[in-house]
């Protein structure tokens, strides 16, 4: 029901809304994942990210409604699989100053992994074995808690840093992804 109330509120105040597009990079679980054999982590391994969203003023003091749809395009190995992350964000923003928004909210992250099948021969102990590659698609659904900050740099452009907290109620699997985007106000 609370989603319906939010949706109706958003429609009622839609006349002040503004459309935005953004380009940037997304790091999935950066410091928690390893990027090379020395054990260093993927802290700055950004994947391309595009998003469309709006800013909708609300009747509440200095609060904005910031729904967003974002797509992350992960790189693909030549004989491996493809991966795509889609983020549906239901964020709110608090205007800290006229140029700075503190963003907070919830979202859904869909991580889709798919492959075209086939086999590959890989080392196995002192010999080799044939292994199968993914031949269908598989999608993970995760609820995220989002926190971020967005600041206007020049007219019609702003920079946004946002974190997406996964599995917040599971102390072992709790991990953060984050993104850095350049936002353009249409």
């Amino acid at each position: 029901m609370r989603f319906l109330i939010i949706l109706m509120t958003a429609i009622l105040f839609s006349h002040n809304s503004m459309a935005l597009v953004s380009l940037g990079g997304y790091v999935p679980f950066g410091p928690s994942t390893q990027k090379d054999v020395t054990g260093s982590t993927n802290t700055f391994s950004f994947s391309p990210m595009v998003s469309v969203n709006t800013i909708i003023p609300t009747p509440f003091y200095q609060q904005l409604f910031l729904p967003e749809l974002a797509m992350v395009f992960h790189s693909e190995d030549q004989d491996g699989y493809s991966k795509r992350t889609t983020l549906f964000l239901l964020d709110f923003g608090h205007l800290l100053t006229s140029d700075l928004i503190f963003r907070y909210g919830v979202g859904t992250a869909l991580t889709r992994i798919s492959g075209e099948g086939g086999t590959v021969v890989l080392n196995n102990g002192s010999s080799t074995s044939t292994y199968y590659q993914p031949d269908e698609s598989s999608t993970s659904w995760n609820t995220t808690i989002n926190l971020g900050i967005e600041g206007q740099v020049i007219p019609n452009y702003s920079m946004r840093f946002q974190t997406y907290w996964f599995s917040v109620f599971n102390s072992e699997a709790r991990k953060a992804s984050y993104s850095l985007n350049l936002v353009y106000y249409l």
Partner: protein
Amino acid sequence: MKSVILVSLIIFISIPAHAFTLSNSGRVNLPGPEVAIVVASNTCSVAGFNSAQELADMVQESVDAYWNRIPTCALELTVEGVNSSIDTSSDGLLEALTKTPIGKILVGCSDDADLFDSSSTLGVGSINTASGDRGAFLLNNRSTVFANQSQQEKLAVIAHELGHAFGLGHSGDPTALMYYAIGGKVQENLSIDDYDACSYLYPHDSPGGCSAVPVMPPGPRSGLKSFKKQSGNKTFAESNSSISLMILTLMMTLFFGCLWREYKARNLLS
């Protein structure tokens, strides 16, 4: 500004290699994401364990350090304890699999000469590729090769063999835990490749994992400053943008789709 965007992307994008594989029988996975691990009762003294319980404790430490930490993977491994009726001291992998309770993973050690004909083999693991109803792995108890590893390497070896036991094959990415060899590398974390492998076999499904994303028509061409002035305006006005209406329709479809998923998930859980 276009060049700024392009340069920003080039600076921030890196291209990691992805290359996980499945078992040598294709996609086979255990029945449920919550999987219990049982430990055979024989002592693995050559492998460096004073008791079966010591091995059980290390397996639990391993799953907590690796596979149970992936948000997008539903797999949840828990060590049930030592099963006093199971002994794998001279078993091959197929024998161990036949002793494994259905839906579980059996961990043990063996001094079987055929299985560990190479002194460099630390362990061997597999899922039951015929039905996927159970998995097992055995550590090398024929030589001290496992005992001679560091604590971090032992945890990584156990996690690697567990990966085989729940359905993964080797990875071509040397960074991955599922790479065929552990020598000469540090494996303190999983790689993105390991995350994707686990998520592919056991995708996470949030029961209430949906949120609405209504998109409204575009407004004035100005920056954030305008909103401070506009936030007090409460007059209703209709949209005159067909594109906005299309996006709004799409978002509302997604929204109600999500609500339906949540409703179904809650009904299934109750």
